[in-house]
């Protein structure tokens, strides 16, 4: 709710440049979608935003030839 209130206070100002550090932290899924839509939809000529997300998407776990199958399963 804090993030939503701050987001409201920022979006209402409609400044030229929006700098957002961790833009999706603290937002539920619905609010994150609204935020993305609001920023994307509100982009006017001359408006832009810079943001950062440092949480990478989950990567598939790599299994090397030497570690698979596990020693206990090799028999």
């Amino acid at each position, binding site marked *: *709710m*804090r*993030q*939503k*209130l*701050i*987001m*409201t*206070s*920022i*979006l*209402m*100002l*409609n*400044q*030229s*440049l*929006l*700098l*957002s*550090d*961790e*833009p999706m*932290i*603290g937002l539920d899924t619905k*609010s994150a979608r*609204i935020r993305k839509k*609001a*920023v*994307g939809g509100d*982009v*006017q*000529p*001359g*408006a*832009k*935003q*810079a*943001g*950062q*997300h*440092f949480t*990478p998407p989950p990567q598939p776990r790599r299994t090397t030839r030497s570690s698979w199958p596990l020693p206990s399963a090799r028999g």
Partner: protein
Amino acid sequence: MQHKLLHIEQLTKSFGSFTAVDKVSIQLKGGEIYGFLGPNGAGKTTTIKMLAAFCSRRRGTIVICGKRLNDSPLFCKKQTDYIPDRLFLYEKLTGAEYLGFIASLYANDSATLREAEQYLELFDLAGWQNNAILTACGKSSS
């Protein structure tokens, strides 16, 4: 000549012997969305703080809407919204009072607050706007 909205040239920030941001150069036009990706300690937050004029003793050039941040800091700050990674709110204010306070800082008129009502509805906060933030959100852990 039409200026870029944001122009960064050779932006560098060091903490002692450690260089957190090393010669970053970016040019952005209006309507573009730009994201910084990288592991912890890569300098993403430091770069954003420099753009928001929260970092002193930096090297390089930052130009916002055609004016250098060093020469026209007030102008550049008026063009910029900054959302930090750690949020701060005046918790004893109500949501509506907080929005009014922020609007007054930017010398905006009632049209801004009407715009705020639209976003309050979108974020399902309309029913909470007259409650104290502390009551509505609970005590902040950060």
